[in-house]
């Protein structure tokens, strides 16, 4: 199970391998959440990571929206 924080709300998502021998990546998780990867920065356990990272049980993922205005 991974804890996901998105737009101020937290939910728990069960991790499962997407196919035999291939572990789930954050990119797969984002696709499941039906959000656009282009719009978010991924912060896994407090560290900025890429979408190719594989989450582990107990991890905490924060999706920081790429905010406009500079």
């Amino acid at each position, binding site marked *: 199970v991974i804890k996901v924080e998105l737009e101020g709300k937290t939910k728990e998502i069960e991790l499962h391998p997407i196919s035999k021998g291939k572990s789930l990546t954050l990119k797969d998780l984002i696709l499941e959440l039906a959000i*656009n*990867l*282009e*719009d978010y*920065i991924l*912060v896994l356990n407090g*560290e*900025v*990571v*890429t979408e*190719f*990272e*594989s989450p582990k049980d107990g991890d905490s993922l924060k999706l*920081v*929206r*790429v*905010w*406009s*205005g*500079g």
Partner: protein
Amino acid sequence: VVKCLCGKPAVFILDQPFCKEHFEDWLKVSVMSELDKYVGSDDVLAVAVSGGKDSTTLLDIVNSWGKSRPVAICIDEGIKGYRDKSLNFLKKFCRENDIELKVVSFEKQMGKTLDSFLKIRDQKGLDLKACTICGTFRRYLLNQAARELGATKILFAHNKDDELQTLLMNLSTGNLNQISTKGELGGLVDEPIFVVRFKPLMDVSEKALATYAVLNYPTLPGEECPNLRESVRYKSRIALNRVESTNPGSKDNLMTVYKETILPAARKSVSSSRKIIKCSVCGEPTSNWVCKACEIKRKLLN
């Protein structure tokens, strides 16, 4: 784990994965090479800042570039609960980095805050978007403030996404005139009354800048303008991000076509027809008898 060439975990992927340190180096080198290309030794630099991610990053890099001491200019539009937070962050940032900051407010210079102008707009039922009022007054005041400070160039933190959104908006309205004034060195460079506008972040994506801000400025307020969603820009942003996510590399391709073909063609097409005169009301530069800022002010206040 995707790793940088140095072996450390990657935080961002460009043409290759970059760790935090190399990602930051890449961004600094990219911006500084733009500064080296377009800023001369006689140039006096002003940086348009808001306390947001893009302009804070730009100001930080220009300041550490070391070849010019920039003055920061911030326009306080008066958006309660939004600008006050970013202004507080900006004041602290400038103080800590020994950067001169000039704050110019709508309330003092244009007579009212943006919040008040929007109330009047709604009461009068005027067809004016918040961004039209804000953007026009902001550009007007920035040019004026930069000129008064003796700046020869004013640096804007417009990123790649901003530039492409603007392009999309101008293409959809067929506004070749507006397209011709954009690009890295924008504005009417032949007119001394206009301070030359320079955009050193034009090749850097919004996501890269947001990532840099998350990594470097943990107390920076990451809020969006409350008026954002009524803008055409917001819709352009969603459209471009959708295209990029289904066809990665689209934004880069569009940027290449824009710089190599659209921009030169637009400039060639309108350069001979553009004439600049002084606004009959305020004396600031305009291509019409009355400048757009005075026209909007008249609609709102008369």
